[in-house]
Structures are given as C-alpha cells and as structure tokens.
C-alpha cells in the first residue's frame, strides 16, 4: 500500500529531476565567440614544391633497379614548408611557416585558424610562399569585405584556380 505522502514525495522527486533535466538540456546559453564581432577563417591545404632538385639517374643506377622501377627522373619526396601571411587593414594577423605533414614530409601543409575582427569594412590580404625561394611570396590575394556582426569570411587557397579565394 503506497502512502499518500510517499506519492506526493515521489511526484516532487520526479518534478525536481525533470526540472534539472530540462534546464541543463536546453541551456544556459554559451558564447564561444563574441556575438558582436565578425570572423575571418583562414583554412586551406596545399602541398609545397619539392625541397630539392630533381635529377636524372645514371645508366648504372637504373640497371641496379627492378625493371618496373627504372624511372629516369628522380625527385626528392620532401616538400618545402609554406610561409603564410594574413594581413587585415595593414596589420599582420598571422604569419607562420607550415611544415609538410607525414613522416617523409611529403604530405601537404595545412592551416585552419579563426580570427575575431570588428564588424565593418576591412582590406584583407593573404600571401603564400610554396617554393624554396628565400624571399617574397609566390601567391598574393586581396579583397575588401564588409562584415556584419557574426559574419564569417573564409580565406581559402586553390592553386588550380589561381590562388586565394575569399568567400
């Protein structure tokens, strides 16, 4: 026989548990980024040029190889590190050397970074060096964008389509 007071107690217990579930399943709200700011995302993958010169194998070198592996031109697997620069309104937000991935350093380098910027119009420039040259950049892209609060602008890089893409 269930006592009426116990039934009330059970009801109260269920109500408290339901309230705890309901409250923390739907909040409190959390702001991972300031809602009154905009964002630029620098995100791309690109493989640098080979770190060394290609060379032709000599005849005796080729003869030592298995027939199916006798390729004349041999290039080093290692790629150069990329140098990436992101400038907003003349201020460098990001400048970093991105090493190639992989044990043999022959995988593309990649970057994915988020930057909080104030809403408004900005001049955004991106530069990339992917060759062994010591100075300067191989690619350069620039745009002027007006960003609203919470707007996100992606800066991508596509070598096949000519370089940086702002979208």
């Amino acid at each position: 026989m269930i006592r009426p007071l116990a039934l009330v107690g059970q009801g109260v217990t269920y109500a408290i548990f339901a309230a705890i579930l309901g409250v923390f399943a739907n909040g409190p709200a959390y702001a991972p980024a300031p809602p009154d700011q905009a964002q630029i995302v620098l995100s791309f993958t690109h493989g640098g040029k080979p770190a060394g010169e290609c060379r032709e194998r000599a005849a005796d070198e080729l003869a030592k190889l298995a027939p199916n592996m006798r390729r004349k031109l041999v290039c080093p697997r290692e790629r150069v590190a990329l140098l990436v620069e992101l400038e907003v309104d003349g201020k460098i937000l990001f400048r970093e050397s991105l090493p190639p991935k992989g044990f043999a350093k022959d995988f593309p380098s990649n970057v994915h970074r988020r930057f909080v910027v104030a809403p408004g119009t900005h001049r955004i420039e991106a530069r990339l060096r992917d060759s062994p040259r010591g100075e300067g950049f191989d690619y350069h892209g620039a745009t002027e964008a007006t960003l609203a609060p919470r707007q996100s602008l992606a800066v991508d890089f596509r070598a096949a389509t000519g370089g940086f893409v702002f979208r």
Partner: protein
Amino acid sequence: MNAVRAPLRFLFEHAENLFDRIFGPRWNPFSCLGALGWYYFWIVCGTGLYLFIFFDTGVHEAYRSVEYMTHEQWYLAGVMRSLHRYASDAMVVMVVVHMLREFAFDRYRGARWYSWLTGIPTLWFLFAAGITGYWMVWDRLAQYIAIATSEWLDALPLFGEQIARNFASPAQLSDRFFTLMIFMHVAVPLVLLFIMWFHLQRVNYAKVNPARGLAIGTAAMLLVLSLVVPAMSQGPADLAQVPTPVKLDWYYLWVYPLIEATSPLFTWAVLVGGSFALMALPWVPPEKKVAAAVVNLESCNGCRRCATDCPFAAIRMGRRTDDRPFPEEPVVDPGLCVGCGICAGACPTAMPFRRMGELVAGIEIPDLTTAALRDKVEAASRGLRARPRILVFGCDHGAKVANFAAPGIAAVSLPCTGMLPPPFVDYILSRDLADGVVLTGCRNAHCRARLGVRWTEERIEGARDPALRARVPRDRLVRIWTSDKGAIAAELSAFAAQLAALKPAPSFPPADKRRVAEAAGERA
C-alpha cells in the same frame, strides 16, 4: 582514497535513506541506477528508430526533416524527439551517479575491477553517441559542435587533411557528410550496447530492468517534460555565420567550453589521462585480498546451490574429480570470489546440528568456516546474561553489530548476512541458545555483496533453498535491513518487548522424533 570516499558515502547514505522513505526499498532509484541507465538506453533506441524514418540526409534536408518532425508531427515525432533527448540526458545522469556510488561504497576494487574498468569506455561511447546525435539536426548548435569537434580532432596528428576545413564555408559541405553522420549515430550506440553487455559479464543476476513502478514513474516524467519543454532546434546552420551564442545541452556538451577555455590538446590530455586514472583506481591501492571460498569434496554432493547463488559468477560446476557418486563439483575462481560467504549460506551441508564427526560444509570461507561460525554462535550465546536473550547477526559492511552488545544482546558479524545458513536460526532457537534472533545487514537492495539480503529473505520465506524450516517460530525472528544505528536500536528494543510478551519458546522433540513428526505434519 578513503578521505574522498567517506563524504561521498555519507551523502549517498542520507540520500538513500530519504529515498527509501519516499519510494520504498524496491523502487528506490539508488538501488536501480544501472538498471535505469539501461532503461533510458532502450527508450533512446526506440524513439531513435521512429525518428530515423523521417530523417533526411542532406545539408538543407536534415534541418528541414527535423523541423517537420518537431512542428508538423509534434504530437508523435516531436514528442519522440524530446523523449530521445531527455532520455539520453537522464542516461548520462544515471551512469555518472552509478559510477560515483560504486566508488563511494568501495565497490570497484578487488574482484569488481572488471566491471569498473569496462565501465569507463562506456562513458566515451555514451558522449560520442550524444554528440553525433546533436550534429545530425544541423542547426546552429550542430554547426558549432561540428566546427569545435573537428578542430578538436584536428589537434591530434592523425589526419592528413583537416576535418574542420569542411565547415569553413558553405561551399565546402557535402550532403554525403550527413550519410556518414547517420552511420556514426547508429554505429556508436551499437558499440556502446556491446560494451554495456561486456560490463555485466562478471555479474550474476544483473539488474537491467528497474522496478515496474519506477519504470512507469520515470517514463511518465520524461513524457510530461517532453510535452512541457519540447526539444527545439536553434535555427538553421549557416557556415557564413558564426554560431554564437548557442544553448548547450550541458550533459553532453560540457567539453566544448573546456576546449575553448584551455586548448584542444590540453582537453585531450585531461580526458584521456583522466580516463586512464579512473581505470587505474581499483589498484590505487588494491583491495586487501580476501581468502576465496574453498570446496570440501568429502561433504559436497554437487547440488549446484552455491554456483546458483554466487552473485559474482565466481563458482562454476565442473566434472567431479573424486570417486563419490555425483556428476559435478563446484569450482571456485579465486580471482572472482569476493569472500562474501553467500555460497556457504546456500550449502545444504552447513548444518550446525551435526555432532557426528567434524562439521565441514561442502563449501566454506576459510576465514569463517561453518564449524567456527557454530563455535562463535555458541560462545556469543554463553555471554547472554539477561532475558530476553537476543542473538544479532550483522554484516561487516553494515552497522557494526558489536556496538549493540548488552547483557541480553550478543552479536555475531559475518562478511555478509547471506552467509548465514538458515539452519543456524533453527539451531539457536531449538537449542535454546537465545530467545530471539535478529538478522541485520546492508539496506535492502543495497547489499554490498549484491544478493545477500535478497537470498536471505527468500530462504527465510521458504522461496529459496536452503529454506528455513516451517517449525521455527517466526515471531522470534526479526530482519532489519538498514545501516542506520538508531533504527536498529529502536527495532531491537521493540523486539525485546515482543519477546518478553511471548510464551516461553516451545521445547522441540529430540532430533530423531522431530523429523518423523515434521514429516507426518507435512503429509497431513
């Protein structure tokens, strides 16, 4: 470690006392935490199957299909969605409280290491299942989770190309991604189910269903919550917008603020390191090794009761190794035995009446053999100086029964009250060793050896072998299943008054005539 466990244990004991009063021992949610976890898991599976019918995979279709379920078919699919969410949240609560409780009551070391160890990976799969579920809605919260999770994964040097690039701009996300997510959201809970099954492998009679009243109550609670606060999406995801602020489900998504506040690698270190630390707990420090039960083949008839009653699957029946005419004998796995002695309590050869030869039961705990227990009982009885004389049997893990000793009260503590063979009660009363017997131990359904209280109750009620003989006067026997010293003292006083009011105990006929008389009575 005891300094950490003691306050937790204090909190649990008080909460459980309160819940015993509200729900009663059978419906007390604290005695069904694991079972409630299973129950919520099945609710999540059932509702998930229904939602799967209407869910559409695609960048825009996913959100639209969830919105259809929430608003147009709110009365069924919408309620199912809410039940799916709240049952998942309730499962997290149950799993975490279950884990804390096992820790507080020191039920994770020794032979129980396996259940503890296999419980830790369930946490990872539980959270992974929840996170992939939130991802599928593809609202602003899902967008945030997708970005934060992929960035978190990218911090590990495992992936050639960064996953987070998929969410950098709207052009980069493909419909096929949602096909992958639905696969993940089905596969991860399946692995979780497998680990949950694994988790129970060294437990006999695992409780995977809560008491019916509790199941109905908690289901009604979830339904009301689903109708009052239905689960809603937070606007469609838009990769050209920063998803901030978002309303988090803090049961599953608490890790994201931690990642943002620290760093992805730091969070990995905390969670992976924390998981390994938790897994190592049973050995920090290891439990003092108790002597495992031993089988005495010369007294064993291979009746299987010990193997049936062992709560930890430590006894299996093997082929007989002696020349006695029985097909099987119990084989004890010392690695699984917790030394509770429930097997000795189940043994039909643990007969204290036996005086011919040495008293050796078929299975015994070396630290307290049946003969030693009889000696202890007789010694305790000799110490009783006032009437009514009460012999109290307690459990080493419940209230300390020695504290109740008085001129008319003597106490015998056992590793588990389930270790006491029912013939001992008969022996004490029929040989006039005491006027009454009290059995006490852990709170009902909270037995440290899991089934000691249940088996004792069933043996006394005659529902389980070895059953207490019908001739034993039940008004001279009291069971008190609580660790509350005050409650035990009060029950003892009431029992003493009850015994004082009773007529003197009947004098039983000599053993040989008694059996004949009983048999005649049963036939009648």
